[in-house]
């Protein structure tokens, strides 16, 4: 009898969980410090902590999914997950296809990284490496410098080391720890302000969820917990 009651209680509990819809969060898992896979193969980083906290505040059950960067938006609009939280800058082109919450980081400048000793480089007349199909690649093409595109961020850095490219242009918070730990690489003083801040991406038809997350981000901004996270992971200026 006791067993029976316990089972029904468990059933009621799990039914309650099922009512509160699981929200699937899509991320890339290859972009430290925002999101990356830790040694155990789990999603970790600034956005992991942020996402978990947002879900707790909004009382949602959340699940993390990794997806290739190239198809991260098509898979969102086709409904394979419900939100993108992957270091995605808010841009006008993306706004046309998906909706964003308010930004949860300040606009992050992009920086140039060169071989140590080459700090005098004139970037407008140099070979600049960037990852294919990023805002940085588009920026370099606009600027008129020689653009060379690689499929992964790792390859862009190898390109600078091997002399294929004079510099690599990428988000500053991605490059800074690399330049810090490697004596043969260093950052230029010149920064470029390309993207807006980073926000969560949601389907345009999913207004309710957007408002939920928006409110949760606002509450984290208000009580200062977002600033703590930003400082902990070193992802730019605080609010």
């Amino acid at each position, binding site marked *: 009898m006791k067993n029976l009651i316990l089972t029904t209680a468990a059933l009621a509990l799990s039914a309650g969980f099922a009512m509160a819809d*699981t929200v699937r969060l899509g991320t890339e898992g290859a972009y430290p*410090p925002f999101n990356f896979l830790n040694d155990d193969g789990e999603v970790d*980083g600034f956005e992991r902590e942020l996402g978990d906290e947002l879900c707790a505040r909004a009382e949602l059950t959340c699940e993390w999914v990794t997806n290739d960067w190239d198809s991260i938006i098509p898979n969102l609009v086709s409904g394979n997950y419900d939100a993108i939280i992957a270091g995605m800058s808010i841009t006008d082109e993306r706004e046309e296809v998906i909706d964003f919450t308010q930004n949860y980081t300040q606009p992050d400048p992009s920086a140039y990284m060169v071989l140590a000793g080459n700090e005098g480089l004139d970037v407008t007349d140099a070979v600049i490496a960037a990852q294919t199909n990023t805002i940085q690649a588009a920026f370099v093409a606009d600027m008129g410098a020689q653009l060379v595109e690689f499929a992964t961020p*790792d390859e862009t850095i190898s390109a600078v080391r091997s002399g294929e490219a004079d510099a690599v242009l990428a988000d500053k918070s991605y490059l800074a720890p690399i330049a810090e730990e490697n004596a043969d690489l260093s950052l230029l003083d010149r920064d470029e302000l390309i993207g807006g801040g980073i926000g969560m991406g949601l*389907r345009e038809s999913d207004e309710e969820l957007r408002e939920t997350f928006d409110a949760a981000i606002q509450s984290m901004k208000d009580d200062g917990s977002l600033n703590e996270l930003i400082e902990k992971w070193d992802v730019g200026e605080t609010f």
Partner: protein
Amino acid sequence: MFSYCTDPDTLSGLTWLSCYLTTGKHMALYGSFGTVLLLLAITAPTALALGFVGASAARSHIAPLSWLGKFYIAIVRGVPDIAFFLFFVIALDQGIEYLRHKLRCPDWSEPIRQGNDFVVCSAAKMPLSTAPQWLHEIYGFGLAVVTFAIVFGAFAANVLFGAMRAVPRAQIETAEAYGMSRRQAFWRVLVPQMWIYALPGLSNLWMVLIKATPLLFLLGVEDIVYWARELGGAKTARFTSYPHPDWRMWYFLALLVFYLVFTRVSEVALERLTRRLSRGQATAAGEALRKAATT
């Protein structure tokens, strides 16, 4: 994994390596070898079945069926597999959800395409959004299997189509002389004999299929290439206990060895299969086997 791995910074040499190679991420890499093998094990028979259907359709006497079979073979063979993988999986997923939507939610009034969004009722989601993660992964894997099978089914159909034509016409005529119907002659005479003609083509197809598996990551399955890239990339000490420079070369070298060994094993196995299938066949190889047995 090991008890001494709690503080990797103090380790060096082989102990460091033993800890490094047993992190959760590396376990995922080892597991993904299983994923690749499983994919091959499921895809090969599925593609073969699809190829058989395609080839039978292509040689059918009913014109629309024959066109359909030939169309399938020609179109899918004409497209590079990567290009096909890049859009087909999403299309397939949306197709399945669309059908389920029509079945499950007939009273749904809102449009399915809202601007860029593809919105179906939550009961039609595949799998349901409440389903645990492993179900999502199995579903993704299933989509990958279907996509691979459709692509390689077209190549298999082409091989089987040729093999069916290669069975000597006299064999069919003899079957007809014995009073077999078209259907009987097909199943009892043509099909058992065509395999030996199809085998060289099918073995090559198997080799191509093995070498197409690095494309799995395009289909959203975390395969060996995904993990090799992930693990091999340079790691800074802030985000891992095991920082290292760009080691992709070593990981890709391991993959290279894996593929070479796998190819070699397949070659040996297929060689044996060819010998077995040649037994009792009206071909030169079958004749040689017969002679060897009698003398």
